[in-house]
């Protein structure tokens, strides 16, 4: 094959491909190499993987990760869709509300996390203060220290942080729905609830499929909120996989073990995403 026969498109994507190769493929290969060696660089076979898998905390961490991801995505979607639909209706001050809604999303993650950490504080937090004032609880709840409330609290923060993104996407999706469709369904006898169920949601489906994928990926590698609020505690009750990898690597300097966990996590995410894409592609053809 001479250079003439090579599709010109290839030349266009070549620079990008090279950049990707250096920034992504090399580190990936290097991680795989790390995972298969010990700290002196000697080949270690599957030892790092065995240690990572058999660690007593692995089960809890996997469970926490799934809990965090599913909880976050579900509430981000629910809140986001609700907000998007409401903000698509006509009402006075709509554009102001639309802009205000974006605040959680544009606030830097670390700032949001620290603010929420203070709000959740057992003794000085405004949440306990308000709940006590209203008489809903009689003594302070240790939101971030109680093993039963720490994950829901973190999920709430994550949902709050990302729902505006969903709302914006939903809003954009709804604006491309022709008015005549709403009118047709109204003439056919639909209530507002029917409009949501039979027109808006089906029309939003392609948007929601992509958004769900993005939210899942972001939740899967969402370190900022949990790491800065609880650091994975108490007693690993809010520890999720990416933080565990980080802690292993940069706090315990167990780079080889961290690399093995990273490879496992990569495979885990890859399986989820491939399954998801399969489902999505199947629906699309339908």
């Amino acid at each position: 094959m001479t250079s003439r026969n090579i599709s010109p498109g290839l030349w266009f994507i070549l620079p990008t491909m090279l950049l990707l190769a250096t920034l992504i493929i090399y580190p990936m290969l290097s991680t795989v190499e790390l995972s298969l060696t010990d700290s002196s660089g000697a080949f270690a076979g599957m030892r790092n993987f065995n240690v990572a898998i058999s660690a007593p905390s692995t089960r809890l961490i996997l469970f926490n990760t799934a809990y965090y991801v599913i909880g976050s995505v579900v509430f981000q979607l629910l809140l986001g869709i609700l907000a998007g639909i409401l903000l698509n209706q006509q009402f006075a001050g709509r554009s102001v509300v639309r802009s205000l809604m974006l605040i959680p999303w544009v606030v830097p993650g670390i700032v949001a996390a620290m603010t929420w950490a203070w709000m959740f504080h057992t003794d000085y937090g405004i949440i306990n203060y308000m709940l006590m004032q209203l008489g809903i609880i009689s003594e302070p709840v240790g939101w971030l220290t109680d093993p039963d409330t720490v994950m829901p609290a973190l999920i709430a923060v994550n949902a709050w942080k990302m729902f505006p993104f969903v709302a914006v996407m939903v809003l954009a999706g709804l604006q491309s729905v022709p008015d005549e469709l709403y009118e047709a369904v109204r003439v056919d006898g639909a209530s507002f609830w029917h409009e949501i169920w039979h027109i808006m949601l089906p029309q939003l489906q392609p948007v929601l499929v992509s958004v769900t994928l993005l939210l899942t990926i972001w939740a899967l590698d969402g370190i900022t909120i949990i790491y800065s609020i609880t650091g994975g505690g108490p007693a690993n009750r809010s520890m999720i996989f990416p933080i565990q990898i980080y802690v292993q690597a940069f706090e315990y300097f167990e780079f080889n073990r961290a690399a093995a966990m990273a490879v496992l996590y990569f495979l885990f995410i890859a399986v989820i995403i491939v399954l998801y894409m399969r489902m999505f592609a199947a629906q699309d053809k339908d």
Partner: protein
Amino acid sequence: MAQVELNKVVKKYGAYEALHEVDMRVENGEFVVLVGPSGCGKSTLLRMIAGLEAISSGAISIGGRVVNDIRPKERDIAMVFQSYALYPHMTVRKNMSFALKLASVPQPEIDAAVERAASILGLGELLDRRPKQLSGGQRQRVAMGRAIVRNPQVFLFDEPLSNLDAKLRVQMRAEIRELHQRLGATTVYVTHDQIEAMTMADKIVVMRQGYIEQIGHPLELYDRPANLFVAGFIGSPAMNFIEGETSAASPQSFVAKDGTSITLPAGSAALDGRRVILAIRPEDLAVVGDGTPDAFAGKVVGVETTGPESVILLETCGTRVSLVLRERASLGVGQTVLLRADPAKLHFFESDDHGRRIIM
């Protein structure tokens, strides 16, 4: 089945008044066509009947019941939209049964209604397809099917054929007519195409800038347009208008701006010495031979042939007129010919802003 009545209906968008005190009546089972140029308020009027637009003042009643504050779904109407507005994620069958489902009609009844509508419209094969998998004409039919299934009191159509090609449009025109004869449902049909209006309507309502200009049977509008606007709007090619003055002398004649004189029929006393606009349809003008009485000269500036007939564009009487010949024209551009207007087919209009018809 029901009649629709509009009583001094006004529509305001903010300060802008889109409809001015419109009065109109659609009888039980009648097929009424609203026609007029773009932006005249046809869709607005139709959407007010449907309940999709609020009524600023006046009253609309359907079947004797004032529906001003009644929601679309309780008005017992069905509407066919210009874009069809089929539900994209539902099959044809689901599209057609949707309204009945919302109304909690029992499933066997829904199935029967859908089957019936599908057989009327020839949709049997397509019931399990999605709108995306249909041609424009098929979508149009599904949109009508969705309306028929509900067996509503009133059918509303908003330019349902404007997205179809010319041939299909002619075919669907006939089908909609046929459907109407079969179902006998009261129908209000919006179009900006006067040929559609002429061929389909029991009664035409001509609108302009939020006013109704004339209401009547298609041929009534054709033969006796109430004003210059209706005269120019109905009929294709459009009616010819010639400005000029009538003389009081006997026999009476009309003198165009350029001095061309056209003899008027006896008994045109109402026209004595006034500035008027003379109007004549292109098919009521004829090319005549030398020596024909009352003929006047015109210069050919264009010839358009459609096959069975030719449209000749001429310069005469200080303006351009067109003339329809029911034969192949052997006239060439630049040629001067003699014309004669059928005296019984002359129309006269005031030469003011309203351009009202002068009744003789």
